[in-house]
């Protein structure tokens, strides 16, 4: 015991000079006995008890998450949509009011600055939700790209706490504490409503591979909403869930995590997510030229491809471990963990195109000097039944 070879959530840590920030639910987490962790400058719950139990609760019943570290940026003004069409790779002006999109913000060279969810709240108002570790970068980039547009970029990171309820029981639980029409709320849609008597933006989004909701509320109302959902979920098996199970849930669902599958060294096409880039929008956008070349390269001569790996044995691959075949390094693990749903270790990895086809034989992972056999599979590892 003693030496941790990898810190928790390695790769997502940043060098901190200040004490970590605490969310509006900090005292609640401590009262629940949470193990806390520094995540992108925030002191966040890693797990409350068993991360495996938390994972399974979200897959089979419901889990409650504090995601207040996520970075909200509001864009307002008559040309808010036009600004986002220019600044992001998606076509946000075509998104209907009350709907959301998964999209990305890229550099001029096509490198990914962050992946985002953008909600269109009104004709002239959008909310961009960035990863905590990138929120400042995204804010700076949007601000730098705004001149010339009749639109305002507003830092709303402190304006919201974010509480998620995820899992097959989440709809029933949330219904009992809201007047909003959840049955009319589609996946990737959001509407203003009231939860436990307080104002909330209710979105049907998540990062778990399950049905679920994300509730943006005022920080002062966060405890009220958390406690109401805890109470409402008691009979349905809802439990509080930390970032550890959030990571295994998104990994099983094949969802990328910035700093692992996504980085400034990769374009959306390199990451297999070229579909988020909308070349057909009739305007120029940051990165267009480089991304057109990246699309061509991914089509004709992809350097490496993102694949799923499933262990034949029980040793767990971690981010940064080498993928090997015939004694040569053919790729690198970006995320790896024991999968509670599959009952064995799984990983995402970038591997040479020659070894990327599902079923490719002879692929292994170098786990601290020992080559362990792995099966190449198509992502995701888990898909819920609808």
């Amino acid at each position, binding site marked *: *015991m003693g030496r*941790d070879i990898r810190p928790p*959530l390695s790769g997502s840590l940043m060098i901190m000079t200040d004490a970590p920030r605490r969310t509006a639910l900090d005292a609640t987490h401590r009262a629940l006995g949470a193990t806390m962790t520094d995540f992108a400058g925030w002191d966040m719950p890693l797990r409350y008890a068993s*991360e495996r139990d938390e994972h399974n609760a979200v897959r089979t019943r419901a889990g409650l998450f504090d995601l207040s570290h996520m970075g909200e940026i509001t864009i307002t003004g008559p040309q808010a949509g036009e600004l986002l069409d220019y600044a992001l790779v998606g076509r946000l002006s075509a998104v209907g009011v009350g709907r959301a999109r998964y999209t990305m913000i890229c550099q001029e060279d096509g490198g990914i600055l962050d992946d985002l969810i953008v909600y269109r709240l009104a004709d002239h108002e959008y909310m961009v939700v960035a990863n905590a570790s990138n929120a400042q970068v995204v804010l700076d980039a949007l601000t730098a790209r705004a001149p010339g547009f009749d639109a305002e970029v507003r830092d709303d990171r402190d304006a919201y706490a974010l509480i998620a309820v995820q899992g097959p029981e989440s709809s029933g639980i949330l219904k009992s504490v809201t007047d909003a029409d959840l049955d009319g709320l589609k996946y990737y849609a959001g509407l203003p409503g009231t939860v436990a008597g307080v104002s909330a933006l209710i979105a049907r989004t998540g990062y778990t591979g399950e049905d679920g909701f994300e509730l943006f509320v005022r920080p002062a109302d966060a405890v009220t909403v958390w406690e109401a959902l805890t109470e409402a979920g008691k009979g349905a098996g809802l439990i509080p869930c930390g970032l550890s199970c959030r990571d295994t849930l998104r990994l099983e669902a094949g969802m990328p995590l910035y700093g692992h599958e996504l980085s400034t060294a990769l374009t959306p096409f390199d990451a297999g997510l070229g579909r988020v880039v909308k070349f057909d929008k009739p305007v120029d956008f940051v990165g267009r030229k480089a991304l057109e070349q990246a699309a061509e390269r991914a089509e004709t001569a992809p350097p490496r491809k993102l694949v799923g790996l499933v262990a034949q044995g029980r040793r767990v691959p971690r981010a940064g471990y080498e993928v090997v075949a015939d004694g040569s390094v053919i790729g690198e693990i970006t995320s790896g963990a024991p999968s509670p749903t599959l009952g064995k270790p799984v990983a995402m990895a970038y591997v040479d195109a020659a070894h990327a086809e599902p079923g490719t034989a002879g692929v292994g992972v170098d786990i601290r000097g020992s080559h362990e056999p792995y099966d190449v599979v198509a992502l995701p590892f888990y898909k819920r039944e609808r």
Partner: protein
Amino acid sequence: MSNPEQLRYSKEHEWLSPAEDGASTVGITAHAANALGDVVYVQLPEVGDTVTAGETCGELESTKSVSDLYAPVTGEVTAVNQDVVDDPALVNSAPFEGGWLFKVRVTDEPGDLLSADEYTAFTAG
């Protein structure tokens, strides 16, 4: 979970039982198991191996981390717990009992093993 009085403890969070039939049992403490989170893989020394106090003799993997297992004493391994290899969750559910790791015939031990009270104070900080 309190630390059993009859055991002694290393600063690397292993526990060591009094010798029984010439061999002492080794495991990791509840404090360590809790810090690791759900243990999913355990690699142990083999029967007949010689382990050396303060040196690594195996590893424990949890969802989020990998940790080395250090031998708290020097000696020959006389048994390993196959149950914990098959079901690593035993380390979390019963660290001082069913989650024991291996038995060792002690030939030498360092002078700095802790009593239960000393270990409790050591981990309180």
